[in-house]
């Protein structure tokens, strides 16, 4: 009996009102080359089953790495016990979880030239070659190359009759060149992460072109100065637009945060951004976006969610439970990173839609400001207050890019920043695919958009 049939049979063993069994197997390879040495090399396979039940109006979750029927039944019973204990005190019980349409089918990522067909020896050889190339360039004293690939197989069955099979392949790749300026480490980073294979990863730039770009960035930043801090007009590149969409806005419209009092609570139908802004989350917006999620881990098919439409807050990201509470439709945002994680509300591919401005036109119109490119990590809170590191910043003076700056950060309130948007460009790029979101558990996500002009606080040294 195959795993899907086995799980379908075991779903009937539970006394709970709702049962969800998720088998998840992951093959993962990670390579890290630092200054010519293999610093980290992993190859692993792990698999298990996550069990979630809704019993007496309360969720219970448990998991096991053992696949015998007896172990799986024990795990179902542990999940039921967990739910029973919690139900002693919980007053806001989860009611019926709605008229959920069972989902069935086989979903495969679109993979052009699977990375599994490239031997690990060849990948190490390529990364060492790139590392060496970068270190041989002027002013570059260190380099790092990272490779991370994951192949996932999932079977999800639940009491609604859902029977889903998902086969996914995701890969991300980094080239980082380091230069040293009076003891301060300056880095140039080029990275890309996709759903797909070798050809999809390197569709825009070859690995050598990426390494060259990383070197060029580090070399140019060596001559850059720190900016003066303060509020400023800024033009964000697609990566930073994606980061604002995800980190500063996206988390505040996740229904679990909304119900916990995020800044987006009670804002539905209200103007929260410039009318130039339409912000969307969609699991299948692009077959190669890193957050490709055709069906979520509750078995819900992905649908496009317009969170902000022409500046007005239109929706929240929900799972089965919160969709019922908020009277919305679940659209495939309940995700679990590995079998031992319960599904929680997550973004997939989050982006701002294109406008009509040319990027050059946007710069030419700006008398005094900054052009910001590349994200170096970000953090935000439930009030949409955020702070992001920026890789490169150019001063804009009288419509021209002038001085290059380094050590730049931007901060502000996400919604205030979106209210200040006065130009959205006609380009578009998903460019956050090499990163992970870390809300309680990891998740592969993507984000992006066009270039966008707005106001934010620029911080420097």
């Amino acid at each position, binding site marked *: 009996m195959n795993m899907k049939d086995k799980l379908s049979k075991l779903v009937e063993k539970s006394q709970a009102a709702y049962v969800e069994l998720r088998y998840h197997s992951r093959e993962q390879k990670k390579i890290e080359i630092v200054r010519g040495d293999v610093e980290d090399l992993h190859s692993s396979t*792990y698999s298990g089953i996550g069990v979630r039940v809704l019993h007496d109006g309360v969720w219970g979750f448990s998991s096991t790495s053992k696949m015998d029927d007896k172990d799986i039944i024990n795990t179902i019973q542990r999940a039921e016990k967990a739910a029973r204990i919690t139900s002693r005190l919980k007053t806001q019980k989860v009611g019926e979880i709605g008229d959920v349409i069972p989902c069935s089918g086989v979903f495969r990522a679109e993979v052009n030239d699977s990375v599994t067909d490239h031997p690990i020896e060849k990948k190490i050889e390529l990364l060492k070659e790139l590392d060496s190339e970068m270190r041989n360039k002027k002013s570059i004293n260190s380099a790092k190359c990272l490779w991370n690939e994951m192949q996932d197989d999932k079977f999800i069955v639940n009491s609604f009759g859902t029977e889903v099979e998902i086969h996914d392949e995701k890969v991300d790749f980094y080239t980082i060149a380091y230069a040293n300026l009076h003891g301060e480490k300056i880095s140039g980073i080029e990275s890309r992460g996709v759903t797909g294979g070798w050809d999809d990863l390197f569709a825009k730039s070859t690995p050598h072109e990426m390494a060259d770009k990383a070197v060029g960035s580090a070399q140019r930043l060596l001559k850059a100065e720190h900016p003066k801090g303060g509020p400023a007009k800024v033009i964000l590149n697609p990566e930073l637009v994606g980061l604002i969409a995800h980190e500063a806005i996206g988390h505040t419209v996740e229904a679990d945060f909304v119900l916990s009092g995020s800044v987006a609570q009670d804002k539905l139908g209200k103007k929260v951004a410039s009318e130039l802004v339409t912000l969307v989350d969609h699991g299948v917006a692009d077959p190669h976006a890193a957050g490709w999620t055709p069906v979520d881990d509750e078995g819900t098919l992905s649908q496009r969610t317009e969170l902000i439409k022409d500046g007005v807050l239109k929706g929240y990201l929900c799972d089965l439970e919160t969709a019922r509470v908020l009277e919305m439709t679940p659209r495939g945002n309940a995700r679990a990173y590995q079998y031992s994680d319960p599904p929680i509300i997550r973004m997939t591919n989050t982006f701002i839609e294109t406008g009509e401005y040319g990027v050059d036109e946007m710069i030419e119109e700006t008398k005094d400001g900054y052009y910001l490119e590349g994200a170096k990590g970000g953090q935000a809170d439930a009030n949409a207050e955020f702070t992001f590191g920026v890789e490169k910043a150019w001063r804009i003076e009288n419509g021209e890019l002038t001085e290059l700056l380094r050590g730049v950060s931007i*901060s502000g309130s996400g919604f205030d920043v979106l209210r200040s948007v006065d130009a959205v460009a006609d380009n578009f790029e998903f460019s956050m695919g090499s990163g992970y979101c*870390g809300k309680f558990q990891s998740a592969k996500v993507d984000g992006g958009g066009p270039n966008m002009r707005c106001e934010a606080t620029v911080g420097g040294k």
Partner: protein
Amino acid sequence: MIEEGIKECLEQLKKKGLTGDVYGIRSRILSYSIMNGEVSDSNEYEDMGLGIRVFKDGRVGFGYCAPGKEEIGVKRAIELTSLSPKTEMELPMGEKPPAVKTYDKKVERAMDDGIEIAQQMVDGASSVDDDILPSRGTLKIASGNVIVGNTKGLFYSQDGSIITGGVAATLPGEKTSLMASESSSSRKYDIDFEEVGIAAGERVVSMKDLAEIPGDKIPVILSPDAMGILIHFGLLPSFDGENVRKGKSVYEDRVGDEVAAGYIDLVEDPTSNWGLGSFPFDDEGVLSSPVSLISGGILDNFFYDLKEAVQSGTKSTANGVRPSFKSPPQIGSRNVMMSGEDIPREELFAGRTILVDNVMGAHTSSPASGDFSVVANPAWLVEDGIKKGRLEGLMISGNLPGSLHTMELGDDHKKIYDSIGSATINIELPSVKLKDVTISGK
């Protein structure tokens, strides 16, 4: 099961004439979530696995597996040795580990009362003000066993336990909701979780009134939570032996120099009983002992694991750590403790100061220079210890190694246990007053 698995892996390695070590963990974890004013759901699971490191022809390979799959794990680790560079490393011999208290059976027993314990945080926060919503929170109770063995006959086993809980209290504000949180962690079942909730509640109530960000330079006092995060990202990387050797630390060639005020000690002590990162051995089987990083303001030592110790021509300081059994060992801090003059609160807060309870963006600090620029939220203007109003949109920036020369330390020592991204923060320290911080904001 873990013990048998480790023995099986080591046996297979010995049969093949190879050396290596195996790290195994079995832990039972129970967690409860608090959401929207009540304990919402629970998750109980067992984490179990083996991390296998193999040495073949001077090269190292790493693999991991579940117990029962030892053959696959060993095979995979051996395969990867051919792709790795030559690595010099001497595995330790078995000795008698130091006695370190890391396990309290009351923590394991508390799993049966987990929901009531989580409820105490909800009740505590709600008791402060009728309008407070304990909006989010987590209680996590874990206990388990860690075993490290190697082909030289070393075989150490120790039980550990931890209970950690935190709650965020939300109050409706004029423009946006106000939110503040409090958390506490211990290896013993000795936390008053109602007090944790009350602290979160009182903190959010104190955020109601606003104050202007001062235009002049005044001292900034960081709570243990805020300072712990800053130290983790802005100071501890400079104590990583590999960073020091590669010139990525402000402390390169500075052992013996005065790098802090004479009253400051910074110690890595995994032998401290009940320390959150304490354990009698590290994840490579090196026995723990206290390591002085800064003593009386003088730079003493750095963190080393087995591999870096060879590279740097020194001994491992028992700082080979693994984020999980799925990762090979890497250099990391375990149970850092910072101490100083223990200035009483009323003295530390004398005059006009700014109190910062949490910071955002500490991960953007420069690990090489210790420069930081972070959003401080929540933060208050304080006069003689009394909060005068919350400071909205405050940013603080400075340089942590530089601040060590002038900072003052309070007497409210707290064990901080936090995680940001993949980083686990594990530091014991008091509130710290920084006098050379640049403040800016809206």
